[in-house]
């Protein structure tokens, strides 16, 4: 089917009536942050990142594989002058390890001259089966990294109280999981997300809340943004889709649609119907 161009008027509305997403020192136009893991090939990753429209991509810090000279580096496929890199502390189960990994990630990015050197996606896990965060170790690591000058984007569960404590500890952004990492279950508890948004934005409406993890498909992204989240971070839902590039494009569109729907303001849900066509002037009679 031939694609149709949106009308000029609609496009102008969509693109002009939103402010950039501000996270720490960075201003972003795209509301999607995408991961770079789990792709079958680095070429597929590169093309999917491009199709997602994301400006920020997450990366992990791991041992350099010595002696394995055939191995290409991921940076051969991500132009660090084009993307803002967000290093994570994935795989850390203790605060001290997360702090070490954050420092090493910062050093790589600093030496690359990538502006992502000033931030980190903090992830301190409590359990390898659920990959749920350890809230106590996360808070401890968050406090330490903030003290070291990091802008901490903090992966957490959807617990509103923990989210508030992380914000109080100086996290630049709180990033609640919609559902467990890689589970594709979407946003399991929209009510908790609503409460997190209410608590964290109470006196600080621009405080960024990013839904991180659990996205399964494009509608999950739309739901998160419709609820008022400022952005969505996802990886598996694109990387493990049957057609990752197409899914990346779907995610981009869902992000735009969800954000627009949030800004536009949805109608309230009602139990009974409300007619769209006027009652006045009907030429028929009601049998009941």
């Amino acid at each position: 089917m031939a694609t149709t161009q949106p009308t000029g008027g609609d496009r102008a509305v969509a693109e002009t009536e939103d402010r950039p997403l501000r996270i720490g020192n960075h201003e972003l136009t795209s509301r999607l942050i995408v991961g770079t893991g789990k792709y079958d090939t680095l070429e597929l990753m590169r093309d999917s990142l491009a199709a997602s429209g994301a400006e920020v991509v997450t990366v992990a810090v791991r041992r350099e594989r010595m002696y394995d000279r055939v191995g290409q580096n991921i940076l051969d496929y991500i132009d660090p002058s084009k993307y803002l890199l967000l290093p994570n502390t994935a795989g850390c189960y203790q605060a001290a390890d997360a702090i070490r990994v954050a420092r090493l990630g910062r050093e790589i990015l600093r030496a690359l001259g990538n502006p992502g050197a000033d931030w980190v996606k903090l992830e301190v896990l409590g359990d390898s089966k659920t990959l749920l965060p350890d809230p106590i170790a996360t808070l401890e690591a968050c406090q330490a990294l903030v003290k070291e000058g990091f802008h901490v984007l903090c992966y957490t569960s959807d617990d509103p109280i923990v989210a508030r404590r992380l914000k109080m500890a100086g996290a630049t952004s709180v990033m609640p999981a919609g559902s467990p990492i890689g589970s594709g279950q979407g946003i399991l508890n929209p009510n908790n997300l609503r409460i997190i948004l209410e608590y964290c934005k109470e006196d600080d409406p621009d405080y960024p809340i990013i839904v991180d993890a659990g996205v399964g498909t494009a509608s999950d992204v739309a739901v998160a943004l419709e609820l008022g989240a400022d952005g969505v971070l996802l990886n598996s839902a694109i990387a493990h889709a049957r057609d990752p590039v197409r899914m990346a494009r779907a995610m981009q569109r869902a992000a735009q649609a969800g954000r627009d729907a949030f800004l536009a303001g949805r109608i309230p849900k009602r139990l009974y119907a409300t007619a769209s066509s006027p009652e006045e002037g009907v030429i028929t009679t009601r049998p009941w």
Partner: protein
Amino acid sequence: MQPSMSNPSSDFGGRGAPSPSFTVQLNGAPVETSGGALIDLLRDRGVRVEVIAVEVNGEVVPRESLETHRLQPGDTIEVVTLVGGG
């Protein structure tokens, strides 16, 4: 920054004695080295210095210091890079 150590091979003088070597832990594996600068150990293993960070005994060694940082017996060295992740 680590104080630079005099070249240990000088202690053994002429007479063609082999340089004394010692062991460091490099990414979890023992490696024999005759000392020298950290950067030489990395270059010997074909590491692309522009995409890595190095930690020695738990402390990050800044890129600018790799040339001058001298290896010490028993050092624990971690060399990391970026990989795909979410």
